[in-house]
């Protein structure tokens, strides 16, 4: 029997897509790469996922798990012709308000979860800018972040358990709602594994109480360096705000044209800072942020007067990538992370690289985490521009790694940065990661050729091969 026929027997014809016109869109994420899709399966339960996995294994066809496809690193782009398993039909939410947890289907939209729990005064803390469109399954796969991860941590800090369908077709619940589950913490490895270890069908997430008081500040600067120095100053003064975001002038100008959020477009950079907590705390913390900003030559500091103004400022921040379309038809968004004390030095190099490659470079990023998002806006129809973009991107990564940073803060490695992994890890490190993945998925059924570069598994089981040995 053919693959498609077998899948249809389990899921029905309506939940198996094989028409190239229907499957085409599944070959791509929100980035620039595309791969070949053989068919798309849309299971609605973990049990159905098990059947799909068994069928794919029988046909020796790789599985690429997929949420909403908002990723940028090629994590859901097939490397070889693959079966896409979309998790978007798994949309159940069961909240346990007293324990402040919820079992959430992989296909639930991030923002829908917080809407669902808002009557109880609770929310899901990770808030990627794509939160209206991205799914919890995708958040788990990429260990997604967002502006409010500065104080609350990324997805892995908010996942207590995962329901995982393994390569052997088993449904495993790793973790639970009691603290410190006994045995190895495999849930922590599954989070951020980019769909390479199995398919997460549900996650038990921690819910966070909504803060009783919030103050959002906007500070404007004549130089990016002053804004970056403010970030280090705030953290150094002992305050970890709920969020600390920076945008440069190119970006605020684009955002103002797009949504009119009230950002001053004459400033070289703006900082968006938010402090949350007990009503007696937020005014004092907001005042401290203001003082640090002013002592770092902020030209203007303003506190959002009401919820409407606050919502507008955040809309401006989260709409930033949409706004870029007004500047150029294509963009390449980067994601790297540096120690936050290196922000000033690295930002100067970022602009220098942009100038050297004659590229429009716009910046909006999670400054508090040292998580940079340089964005190059361009027109791909111009000859040679893609090559320049790629060369600049590679230089950016090198600069960040040299400053003690890492390849990705929140977008993942996927295909985009897979071959850059040796910049930060030795072959012994990469081999250990490959062995770990092998323990979950010995035949590399799930999302093969992602995260780790080819040849990572370079040692025999047992002992390292002596230097100079050819295998």
């Amino acid at each position, binding site marked *: 029997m053919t693959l498609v026929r077998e899948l249809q027997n389990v899921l029905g014809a309506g939940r198996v897509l094989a028409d190239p016109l229907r499957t085409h869109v599944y070959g791509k994420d929100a980035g620039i790469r595309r791969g070949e899709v053989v068919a798309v399966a849309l299971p609605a339960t973990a049990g159905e996922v098990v059947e799909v996995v068994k069928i794919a294994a029988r046909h020796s066809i790789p599985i690429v798990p997929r949420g909403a496809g908002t990723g940028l690193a090629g994590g859901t782009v097939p490397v070889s012709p693959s079966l896409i398993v979309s998790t978007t039909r798994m949309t159940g939410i069961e909240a346990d308000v007293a324990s402040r947890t919820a079992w959430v289907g992989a296909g639930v939209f991030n923002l829908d979860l917080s809407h669902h729990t808002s009557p109880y005064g609770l929310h899901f803390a990770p808030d990627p800018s794509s939160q209206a469109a991205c799914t919890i399954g995708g958040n788990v796969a990429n260990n997604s972040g967002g502006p409010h991860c500065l104080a609350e941590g990324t997805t892995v800090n908010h996942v207590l358990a995962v329901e995982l369908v393994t390569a052997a077709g088993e449904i495993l619940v790793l973790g639970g709602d009691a603290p*410190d589950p006994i045995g190895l913490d495999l849930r922590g490895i599954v989070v951020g594994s980019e769909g390479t270890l199995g398919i997460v069908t549900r996650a038990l997430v921690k819910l966070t109480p909504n803060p009783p008081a919030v103050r959002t500040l906007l500070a404007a600067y004549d130089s990016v360096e002053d804004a970056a120095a403010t970030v280090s100053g705030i953290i150094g003064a002992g305050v970890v705000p709920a969020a600390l975001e920076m945008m440069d002038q190119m970006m605020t100008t684009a955002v103002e044209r797009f949504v009119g959020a009230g950002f001053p477009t004459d400033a070289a950079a703006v900082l968006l800072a938010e402090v949350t907590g007990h009503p007696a705390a937020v005014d004092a913390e907001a005042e401290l942020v203001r003082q640090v900003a002013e002592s770092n030559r902020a030209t203007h500091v303003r506190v959002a007067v009401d919820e409407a103004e606050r919502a507008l400022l955040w809309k401006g921040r989260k709409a930033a990538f949409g706004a870029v379309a007004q500047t150029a038809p294509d963009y390449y968004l980067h994601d790297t992370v540096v120690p936050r004390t290196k922000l000033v030095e690295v930002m100067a190099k970022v602009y220098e690289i942009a100038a050297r490659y004659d590229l429009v470079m716009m910046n909006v990023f999670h400054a508090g985490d040292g998580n940079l998002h340089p964005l190059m806006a361009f027109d791909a129809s111009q000859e040679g521009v893609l090559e320049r973009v790629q060369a600049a991107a590679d230089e950016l990564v090198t600069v960040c790694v040299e400053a003690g940073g890492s390849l990705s803060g929140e977008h993942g490695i996927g295909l985009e940065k897979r071959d850059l992994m040796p910049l930060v890890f030795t072959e*012994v490190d990469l081999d250990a990661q490959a062995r770990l993945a092998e323990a979950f998925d010995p035949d590399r059924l799930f999302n093969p050729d992602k995260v780790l570069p080819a040849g990572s598994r370079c040692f025999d089981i047992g002992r390292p091969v002596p230097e100079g040995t050819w295998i």
Partner: protein
Amino acid sequence: MTSVRSALQQRLAGHLSDPIEGAPEDAVFVAPATLEGAAEVLATASRYALPVLVWGGGTHQGIGGRVDPVLVLSTARLNAIVDWQPDDLTVVVEAGVGVADLEARLGERRQTAVLPETSGDATVGGVVAAGVSGFRRLRYGPTRDRMLEVDLITGDGRVVRGGGRVVKNVTGYDLPRLAAGSFGSLGLIGRVCLKLWPLPEARRTVTLTERRPEYGYRPLAVVEEREQVQVYLAGTLAEVEARTAELGGTYQEGWQWPDPPSGSITLSLRVAPRLLRDALDELPKSWTYQALPGVGEARVGLDKFELRTVSEIRHRVEKQGGALVLTSAPAAVYATFDPWGTPPPGMDLQRRVVARFDPDRIVNPGRLPGGL
């Protein structure tokens, strides 16, 4: 055994150390001074399949299955604070650094790694390996949430680094987090980079005489005992004063952390937070406890071990998805009572993962649930 001892002592001559009080006496004691030295020790042990017990401060040796080692590997000489970046809120330390020493040092710049507050002689490596957390986990999450980078010396003597020295990172599989609570099953935790938090300006302990459904918006820590409740506050002076007034009760400046529960036997009871109070109400009246509402953990102390009573409680707790874990007891108790209880699902997978790091299964063999 004598010939094995002398052969080993000869082979590991550069790493030998004095015996450690409380550790199995007939073992060979080593204390490598570098990660490479530790790798040499473990590679040798692996080659001859000799079981190794890793020893930090000895404070968490009561947790998990008993190990009968030929070698005891002490982290006492791996004791450097390698790199502290106060403005990045990160610190890199070797495994043998004492938790209290580290926190005292960080405190000089008003920072904390949020490690267990009353940890005695515990080392950073020991706390990470045992996956234990302090009272402040209510606000800042468990110790595993501090883990940014790890250098593991695998059972077969490789030095493997995972993670990075940045506060946000998705570059590769999260080995640092896997190391938390791994009890040596991946090898020796040689060095870690931890995420730090600022220590607040004002700190106060409020004592209440009765339990409440809530203790205000996200307090730092809450500890419920039989006779009283302590609520720990942190923040600006204005905030701490406002919260004290809201709570009522009496207060002291500073954080007065409770001593570990009294009793020759201690247990860790873990359930979903909503089930904690009912679970506590079913404990025998002679048992003492410190319960962490909102977390779902209670540290329990008792003097007389009655197998039937403890087993019944464990059975009830496990049926609700929780665990009752032995954390310290006289040796005889371990012979009749599994220190972990029923192993979790996915033990085959756990075994396969461990085999990738420690193929000869020599580091703390049998320490994890299910005899792994």
